[in-house]
């Protein structure tokens, strides 16, 4: 009886040791995997790219930016709309691909600027100036 209890105790000890290790490494790998989906990095990259292009642009220009990777990352985070927003009060570009709140970056250009994502075409559309047509050729 005493021997059986001792053996049972040893088995329990070994099993709990393995389980704790498995849980620990699972959590660690999950953390790395979540970081590696790159939402944070892509948010920053797109926000800065759009802001710099706005600052550099002459008026009455339409800019299309490849957004395929961003849409892919957002879909992975179950986010399908509102990926890019404009804060006109602060002159800020905000890109949110599933991260909390997204990443914001300011631009200093004072031209009339509007931008939005086009999920179908997988691009970000940036219009600088008052007299710009959209992708369908419609005037604002």
């Amino acid at each position, binding site marked *: 009886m005493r021997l059986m209890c001792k053996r049972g105790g040893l088995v329990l000890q070994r099993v709990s040791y393995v389980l704790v290790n498995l849980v620990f490494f699972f959590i660690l790998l999950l953390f*790395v995997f979540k970081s590696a989906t790159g939402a944070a990095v892509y948010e920053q990259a797109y926000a800065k790219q759009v802001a710099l292009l706005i600052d550099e642009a002459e008026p009455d220009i339409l800019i299309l930016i490849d957004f395929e990777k961003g849409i892919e990352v957002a879909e992975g985070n179950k986010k399908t709309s509102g990926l890019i927003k404009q804060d006109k009060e602060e*002159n800020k570009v905000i890109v949110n691909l599933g991260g*909390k709140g997204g990443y*914001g*970056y300011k631009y*200093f250009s*004072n031209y009339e600027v509007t931008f939005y994502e086009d999920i179908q075409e997988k691009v970000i559309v940036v219009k600088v100036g008052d007299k710009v047509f959209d992708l369908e050729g419609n005037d604002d």
Partner: protein
Amino acid sequence: MIKGKKGEKLMSLFWIFMLIIVGGGVSVSTITVYGAEIDVRNIEAEILNDRILDCIVEDGFLVEGFDENFDVFGGCKINSEAIEDNFYFRIIFTGEKTFEIVRGTSFETECGLTEYNVIEVKYFPKCVKRVRNVVYVDGGIKEGSLEVLTASNQVGGRNVID
């Protein structure tokens, strides 16, 4: 028996210590790699410099009405609030008369310290200086020079949800 128990306790402590080292190392590496800031301040300062120069100088000539009271924000379509926080520019015109226009957060000292790339400080702004020879009309055609110094220290950030 006592030896075995001591050995087991030591192994447990060693195991916990190893988990902490491995876990901590992996976490720090991951955060460092994926949390790195993409530094575009130099490009921003260049773009601002180009914007100012292009709006003040046309084909080598100073635009009409350029003087110490020139409205750089209105004339060059630059948002004044955006500039006040994270940017700086200084325009020095040298001709028959000399004047300067300065706006934004004063990064002049920091720009001076990093001018010759002797020292580099991570949190100092990135500065760009350009000098152009210009021609202007003031009772005749005259020559002068225009120095434009721009600096950017904008660091973006996570957007706070209201």
